[in-house]
């Protein structure tokens, strides 16, 4: 005959609500453990996702072509662009040129990374130029305008409309108009980048239509692996990377964060497990005589075990549900009010439904597991010893 769950539930329910303070204490620790997991994982996942998204959106195509080994530039850019334009799955492409320089505003100056690009092609390929927070984007023929990353602008006290002098690596320098301020969320980009039209950069650096990378946008980013050999063959290039390879370095960062957040989650869980385990154990010891009476009346070992396990389930269901709510609102609040973080600019969790499922499942399991031992002790109690003491 299986255990009568209804009867076990009847008793468990009466028992856990008997002492309001203990009930509140246990529930709070479960609420905390659940909400903690939701917020910490939401924060970690949100941060990692932001980082990957930002990186793909602003500094990588689905496929990136690099110069051959030992070369600084991609050879024969014109021909390669023509061939790319003819490929069916290639939706857009954008050649970029990287160089270094020094940007000065009066007595302030800073070394900068110059990112030269064709604004029209770039706009079709990435979302980099959507990230202008102030001012306007560049045009291909803007020979006197640059965009400045926001931290650099702060450092040099530059604002839209100001003029700044850019010294190139070949010694040439020219005064440019700051047409816009850009902020991508990628730390090193935001700290020291100047964006300018590709033509102007080639001219100042006395290069002949050069690029140091070509970003390619495919009709679907999942085609990247399959399409890489096609690009290599058609364009006769050897150094091509997919967006996955480009963001791979972020994975170790992500893993570090994930293990950090697992530790924080585990601490909360262990605290909840210990409090649930101890409270139920104390309750079992405290109730020894009543357990004996219950057995004398005819309750089987399994029934007694179920009663005390059920108490943990009840604590769990109540604590986890409230914890889900608290965690949800905490994540939503932080999503709307990100807090400042020096590396990324700001840090905000993101809400995903799986955060609730994961936190609920893991907390519930932990709480139930914590009760298994005390419940087992209760079930195994010897009737005679339980009633007459020993």
């Amino acid at each position, binding site marked *: 005959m299986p255990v009568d769950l209804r009867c076990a539930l*009847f008793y468990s329910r*009466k028992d856990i609500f008997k002492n309001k303070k203990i009930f509140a204490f246990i529930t709070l620790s479960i609420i905390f453990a659940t909400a903690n997991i939701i917020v910490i994982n939401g924060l970690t996942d949100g941060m990692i996702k932001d980082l990957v998204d930002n990186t793909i959106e602003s500094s990588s195509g689905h496929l990136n072509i690099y110069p051959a080994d030992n070369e600084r530039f991609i050879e024969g850019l014109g021909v390669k662009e023509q061939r790319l334009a003819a490929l069916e799955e290639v939706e857009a492409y954008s050649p970029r040129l990287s160089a270094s320089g020094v940007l000065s505003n009066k007595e302030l100056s800073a070394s900068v990374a110059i990112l030269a690009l064709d604004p029209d092609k770039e706009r079709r390929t990435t979302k980099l130029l959507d990230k202008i927070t102030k001012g306007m984007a560049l045009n291909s023929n803007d020979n006197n305008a640059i965009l400045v990353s926001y931290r650099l602008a702060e450092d040099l006290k530059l604002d839209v409309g100001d003029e700044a002098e850019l010294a190139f690596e070949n010694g040439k320098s020219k005064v440019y108009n700051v047409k816009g301020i850009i902020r991508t969320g990628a730390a090193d980009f935001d700290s020291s980048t100047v964006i300018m039209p590709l033509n102007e950069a080639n001219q100042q650096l006395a290069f002949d239509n050069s690029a140091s990378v070509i970003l390619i946008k495919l009709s679907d980013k999942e085609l990247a692996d399959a399409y890489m050999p096609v690009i290599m063959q058609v364009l006769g290039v050897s150094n091509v990377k997919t967006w996955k390879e480009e963001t791979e370095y972020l994975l170790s960062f992500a893993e570090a964060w994930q293990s950090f957040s697992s530790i924080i989650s585990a601490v909360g869980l262990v605290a909840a497990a210990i409090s649930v385990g101890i409270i139920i154990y104390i309750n079992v010891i405290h109730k020894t005589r009543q357990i004996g*009476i219950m057995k004398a*009346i005819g*309750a*089987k*070992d399994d*029934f007694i075990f179920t009663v005390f396990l059920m108490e943990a389930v009840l604590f769990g269901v109540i604590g986890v549900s409230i914890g889900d709510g608290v965690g949800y609102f905490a994540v939503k609040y932080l999503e709307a009010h990100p807090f400042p973080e020096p590396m990324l600019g700001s840090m905000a969790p993101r809400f995903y439904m799986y955060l609730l499922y994961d936190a609920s499942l893991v907390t519930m399991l932990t709480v139930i597991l914590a009760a298994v031992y005390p419940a087992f002790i209760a079930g195994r109690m010897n009737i005679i010893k339980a009633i007459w003491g020993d």
Partner: protein
Amino acid sequence: MEMIRTGNLKKSYMPGKVEVKALNGVDTSIEHGEFVAIMGPSGGGKSTFLNLVGMLDTPTSGEIYIDGSDVTKMNSNTRAEYRLKHIGFVFQFFNLFNELTAVENVMFPMMLNKQSGYKYRAKELLNLVGLGDRLHHLPSELSGGQQQRVTIARSLANDPKMLLADEPTGNLDTKSSIEIIELFRKLNQERGQTIVMVTHSPEIGGMADRIIHFRDGIIENL
């Protein structure tokens, strides 16, 4: 017909190095509908006998027949089920579940037995023991005598074949004790309930149909 029969019933304990013979060959027989008192000096084996007959413990050797069936061979789950359906217990004190009200305490064995209509029947039983006006009181809100009456009501919940009581009035004053015994008498006479009760009081023992005397683990014939 016999409700309880034991043959050469023995129970030894080994609390330390020395064996304690709590029961040392008990042959006894109690009829259906009898109201029996068990008396004798402390340590004589009264509780041990009641625990064995009530299937709370297993004998070292010997036979126990309840209502014709040999119960010594049963496993612990079968014994639990047998107790639930056929045996009612009243111990000396703290019999009740603290967190349940009087009516819930009486309902409990019926719920455990998956019996329907338990709420109605629990109220009936509390009326029978004279506590119809205390249904929703917690044990802590009842006097010792009232608590024992709730326990008796609970012991009757599944209509047991026999009711075993180990010093049910041991903690009560004389007036409450008499009330409890009168309740037993009534249950025995009106419902034919078999009752086996341990007591130290000759006055209370004298109200039973018969007294069995235990001394040093055996039945003493006076």
